[in-house]
C-alpha cells in the first residue's frame, strides 16, 4: 500500500515537472497578428537585465512614433548572442530573414552578412537622418565596407579601460600609469609589496587584454594596420607588442583560468588586486555590488592608449529582401535617433553612439566616457567583433590559447601571421 502511494506521488511529481516546464514558454515567440497591419520583426539577444529593459524603452519610443506599425520582438536568449546567432544563421539559410537584427558593429557583421549578401547598405538613411554629423568621424570607416555603411550602432562600450583600486594604489605609492613603461614599473612595485598587480579571468578576457596591449604598444595607426593588412604581423613592432603582452601576463593572478570576468573585476573592488582591464560594462557590475565611483574604483585608458577610444557596439541591420523593409527602416530610424538612444543607453549602462545625447541622464563614469567618445580617436575591438571577422578571430583565439600554455612568442607570432593569411586581408 505504502509502495503504491509512493508511486502515485512520483507520478504526480513527474506530471508537475512536465507541466511546469511547458509553462516557461520562450519569451520570444510572440505570435504575429494577422498580416493586415504593418509590422516589423526585430531579432536580438536582449532578453534580460538592463538590455531587455533598454530595448523595451526603445520600443516605447518606436510605438509612440509609429503607432500603425506592430513591433514584433524576436529576441533569443543566450549569453552574448551565441544561441541567437545560431538561430539567425538557420533562418537566413532557410531564406526567412527577420526585417532587422542585432550584431556587433564592424567586421563580425560585415565578414558574415555582407559576404553572404544578406544585408543592405544604409548610406541613404545616414544622409537623410544626418547621422554622419553626430557620430565620430573615425567610427564610420570601422562599420563600413568599401564605402558602404552596413549597420546602425545603438550603444557604445569602451574596451580599453584600466580599472584600478584607488586605495591599493595610494597605499603602495603608485600613480595611475599612462604609458606601458610606467605600467610595468607600477606592477613591479605592487608585486614586490605582495599585491596581485593585475586581475585576469578566463580565455576571452585574455584576448581582451591582448587587444588593449597591442593598441597600447603599437599605437593607433599600426594597430589599425593590423586589421586592414598594412601592418605586417611578422614585423618587429608586433614581436615587441607580443613580448609586452607576455610581460603583462607575468603580473596576473595564477588562477585566471577559473575566473569569469566578474570574478576578476571583483578582485579589484575588493582590494585583492590593483588593476583589471575590462570593458566598461564592468562599471555596471561594480554599481551592482554597491561600490562607489572614484572611491572604491577608478578608471583610466589602458596605458599607451590615452586619447584613444577602443569601442564595441551593438548595432542593427537592414535585411536584404526584408519582408517589411519600410517597417525595418522605421525601426532603424528610431535606433539611430537621439530619443531612441537616450531611452536605451541609461538603462543598459552604455553611452550613445551619437555624440549629442543629454549628459545628465548618465552617471559619473559614463559622462567621462561620453566626453572621450566625442573627442578621442576611435579604434575597434577584436574580441567584440569590430576589427576581425569571426573566422579570423577564432583562429587568433586558438593561437592565443596555445601561447598561454607554452609562452612561445615566435610560435604565437607565426600562428598570427598564418591566421591573417587564411582568414584576414593578408596575402
Amino acid at each position, binding site marked *: 500500500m505504502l509502495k503504491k502511494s509512493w508511486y502515485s506521488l512520483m507520478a504526480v511529481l513527474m506530471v508537475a515537472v512536465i507541466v511546469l516546464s511547458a509553462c516557461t514558454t520562450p519569451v520570444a515567440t510572440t505570435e504575429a497578428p494577422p498580416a493586415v497591419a504593418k509590422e516589423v520583426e526585430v531579432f536580438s539577444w536582449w532578453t534580460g537585465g538592463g538590455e531587455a529593459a533598454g530595448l523595451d524603452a526603445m520600443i516605447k519610443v518606436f510605438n509612440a512614433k509609429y503607432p500603425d506599425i506592430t513591433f514584433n520582438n524576436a529576441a533569443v536568449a543566450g549569453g552574448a548572442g*551565441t544561441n541567437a546567432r545560431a538561430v539567425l544563421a538557420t533562418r*537566413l539559410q532557410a531564406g526567412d530573414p527577420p526585417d532587422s537584427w542585432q550584431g556587433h558593429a564592424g567586421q563580425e557583421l560585415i565578414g558574415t552578412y555582407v559576404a553572404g549578401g544578406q544585408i543592405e547598405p544604409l548610406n541613404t538613411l545616414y544622409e537623410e537622418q544626418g547621422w554622419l554629423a553626430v557620430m565620430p568621424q573615425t567610427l564610420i570607416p570601422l562599420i563600413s565596407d568599401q564605402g558602404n555603411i552596413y549597420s546602425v550602432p545603438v550603444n557604445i562600450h569602451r574596451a580599453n579601460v584600466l580599472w584600478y583600486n584607488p586605495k591599493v594604489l595610494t597605499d603602495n605609492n603608485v600613480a595611475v600609469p599612462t604609458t606601458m613603461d610606467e605600467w610595468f614599473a607600477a606592477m613591479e612595485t605592487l608585486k614586490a609589496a605582495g599585491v596581485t598587480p593585475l586581475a585576469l579571468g578566463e580565455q576571452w578576457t585574455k584576448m581582451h587584454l591582448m587587444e588593449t596591449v597591442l593598441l597600447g604598444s603599437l599605437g593607433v595607426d599600426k594597430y589599425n594596420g593590423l586589421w586592414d593588412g598594412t601592418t605586417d604581423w611578422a614585423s618587429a613592432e608586433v614581436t615587441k607588442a607580443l613580448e609586452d603582452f607576455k610581460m603583462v601576463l607575468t603580473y596576473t593572478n595564477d588562477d585566471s583560468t*577559473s575566473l569569469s570576468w566578474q570574478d576578476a573585476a571583483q578582485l579589484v573592488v575588493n582590494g585583492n588586486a590593483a588593476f583589471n582591464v575590462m570593458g566598461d560594462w564592468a562599471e555596471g557590475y561594480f554599481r551592482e555590488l554597491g561600490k562607489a565611483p572614484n572611491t572604491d574604483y577608478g578608471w583610466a585608458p589602458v596605458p599607451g592608449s590615452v586619447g584613444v577610444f577602443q569601442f564595441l557596439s551593438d548595432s542593427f541591420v537592414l535585411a536584404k529582401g526584408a519582408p517589411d523593409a519600410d517597417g525595418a527602416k522605421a525601426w532603424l530610424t528610431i535606433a539611430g535617433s537621439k530619443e531612441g538612444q537616450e531611452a536605451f543607453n541609461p538603462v543598459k549602462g552604455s553611452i550613445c553612439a551619437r555624440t549629442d545625447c543629454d549628459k545628465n541622464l548618465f552617471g559619473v563614469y559614463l559622462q567621462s566616457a561620453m566626453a572621450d567618445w566625442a573627442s578621442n580617436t576611435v579604434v575597434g575591438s577584436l574580441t567584440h567583433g569590430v576589427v576581425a571577422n*569571426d573566422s579570423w*578571430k577564432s*583562429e587568433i583565439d586558438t593561437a592565443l*590559447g596555445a601561447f598561454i600554455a607554452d609562452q612561445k612568442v615566435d610560435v604565437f607570432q607565426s600562428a598570427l601571421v598564418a591566421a591573417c593569411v587564411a582568414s584576414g586581408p593578408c596575402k
Partner: protein
Amino acid sequence: MFRNKDRYLSFLLVLPSILAILIFVYGFIAWSVRVSLSKWKGLTPDYTFAKLDNYIQLFQDPRFHLDIRNTVIFTVVFVFGCIILGFFMAVMLDQGLKGEGFFRTLFLFPMAISFIVTGVVWRWLMNPATGDRTSGFNLLFSSLGLDFLVNRWHTTPTWGIAAIALAAIWQMSGYTMALYLAGLRSIPQELKEAARIDGANELQIYQHIVLPILMPVSLSALIILGHISLKVFDLIIAVAGKQYPLDVPAIYMWQSTFDGLFYARGAAIGILLLISVAVLIIPYMRYTLKSEAPQ
C-alpha cells in the same frame, strides 16, 4: 516476399521508424561527410569538393593533437576510475550489509544529474584560488591539515583534464556499480561454494570465478563509459568554459562551426568523432548480436 500477413504487418509498423532513422541519422551523416569534404567557410554553403584537405589539415593541427591527447588522458582516467571504483562498491554492497538499498540509491544518485549540474558544482569544489580566497576542496584539505593534497585541479598545466575526469567518475561510478552488482547477483552461489570446498580462498574465488564471469559486464561498462568520454563536451564547458588547455574534439568542433564559421572543418571533426566511437562500438554490437541471436 512476405510469407504471411503478420510479417507484412510488422514490417509496416516498423517502417516509419526505419524511414525516420534513415533520414535523420544516416541521411545527416552522409550530409556531414559531404560538408567535411567541401570548402564551406562562412555563413553561405559552399560545396566545392576539397578532397581530404580538411582531414589532412586537422592531423597537422597542433590544437587537434592536443585534443587527441586530452581525450586519451580523460578516457583512461575516467573509464578505469569508474570501473575500479564501481567494482569495489558493488563487491561491498554484495556482502549483504544492512541498508543496502539506501547505499545503492546513494551511489546511483549522481547519475540522475546532468553533466552541466555536476560541472557547476565541481567548478566550485575544484576552485584553485590561493591565499584568503581559497575555497572548495583546497579549503577542506588545508583546514584538515592535509596541505599536501592542495592542488590546482583543472588549471594544472598538462594534466588538468584528469581533474575533469574526477568529476565524471563521481557521476558515473554509481552506474558502473549497478552494472557490476547485477552481474555479481547472477553468479550462482554453488560455484563459489564448490570452489570453497576445493580449498580456494576469497581472493582466488574472485580471481578465477567472479572476474571471468563478469567479463561481459566489464566489456559493456568499457564501451558505455568509453563512448561517453569520447563525446564529452558539457562537463568541460561547465567546469572551465572554452579554454585551450582543456580542449577536446567536441569543443573544437563547436568552436570551429559556430564561433569561427568553419563548417567544413567542424563537419570533419564530427565525422572523426563518429568513426572513433564506431571503432569502439561496432565490434561490441557484432559480439552481442551474435551471442544473443536465437539458437
